[in-house]
């Protein structure tokens, strides 16, 4: 038992983003339907202003980066916490249509689950 405990860190999953294995279909879909998604520079203004983020793990700039990296599981888990208030869109310096992006993510995830 003791041995198992000391080596427990080995059981943790690899933190590395394995870019070659990730599926970036969501990014290519968004580039087609909402190309402003590409303009995000991950400045973090959306995260700072997000009311939902104050009470949950929702972090839009991380979602935006994860779209490009193909981290679909993370996005699917986090996106449900957004209540579409649109404050992120007001503050975005690059004028990314954040609400549009989020709605498109939801519709993509729903259709790909079918």
């Amino acid at each position, binding site marked *: 038992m003791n041995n198992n405990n000391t080596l427990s860190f080995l059981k943790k999953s690899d*933190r590395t983003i394995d870019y070659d294995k990730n599926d970036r279909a969501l990014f290519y879909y968004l580039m087609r339907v909402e190309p402003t998604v590409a*303009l995000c520079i991950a400045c973090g203004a959306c995260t700072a202003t997000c009311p939902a983020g104050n009470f949950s793990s929702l972090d839009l700039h991380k979602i935006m980066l994860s779209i490009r990296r193909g981290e679909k599981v993370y996005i699917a888990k986090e996106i449900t916490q957004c209540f579409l208030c649109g404050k992120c869109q007001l503050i975005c310096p*690059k004028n990314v249509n954040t609400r549009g992006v989020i709605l498109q993510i939801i519709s993509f995830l729903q259709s790909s689950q079918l």
Partner: protein
Amino acid sequence: MNTDIVVFGGGIAGIEAATSLHRLGYNVIIIEKETFLGGHVTLWNKLFPNNKDANEIVQQVISSLNNNITIFLATESTKIINNHNNTYTIHLNNNKIIHTKAILIATGYDVFNAKLKEEYGYGIYDNVITSDELEHILKQNKRILTKQGKEPTRIGFVHCVGSRDRKVNNIYCSKVCCVTAVKQAIEIRQKLPFSEAYCFYMDLRMYGLNFEELYNDSQEKYGVTFIRGRLSEASENIEGKIIVKVEDTLLGRPLKMTMDLLVLMVGMVPSKGTSWLIKELELNFNSGNFVSSLDEHTKSNLTNKKGVFVAGTASSPKTIDDTLADSRSAVLFIHEYLKSF
């Protein structure tokens, strides 16, 4: 031979200054080590940020040359003697000797030797090339191919190779590589529509007119992906592809991906001619080992030696626009100096 001014370097900085000085009525001699005029710009394809043909700039600058300006091609200086009466005697390797009142250093830069950054594998792996080499491929309108002869589907650009790097003693920013990477990524996406382009950067410095617009275009129209993080290493797999390891610092997680072609954005270092002239004329080095100006704000073209002037990238990395403006400013300093000679 007697002359008013000798211009070292027949790049755009040297030619622009020489023609302006000639129009002001001075005798000018240009000394160029290569067999052609125009310097680095003649080897480039399209220019940032507006996709202008580099040749157009060179032709525009060269067209104002005339027969009254003496040009020595494929010539280098072997010795310069300061006569201490405000004149200089220059010995050339074609056995000519020139007596001159003023010297303009327009000897520019060399590209950084990417082999010094061993961790990126330049000179070790076949599919790691420099931005300079990619520009020559684009200029010659050749197909972009990997060493295995296939069209690359994933191309990476590594920013700041040899710039902002204390490990190679270059603490300065080379100023043009960021926007060159954006420009080359767009060109690659235009030539190879089924490819993906990635830029690995520390900061993106889009300071110039229309640079930010080009950067926005690269993302929105061409889908170029920017990943903030400096490569820890590049390695080769059995197929000859390049595996890069980098920390995605915006997500705070390590990232690993395979590239078909890795392009190193090499910065500027003082050219051999620039370094030689600094030593020969006993000038001061600045923090980047370029020619030090007497005052970086108000006397940017003057040096610590009377009668020795500097223009273009011999004093610091510059864009083409800044180089030409700097040359014209040097001309005014020289004009004022020679007028009261």
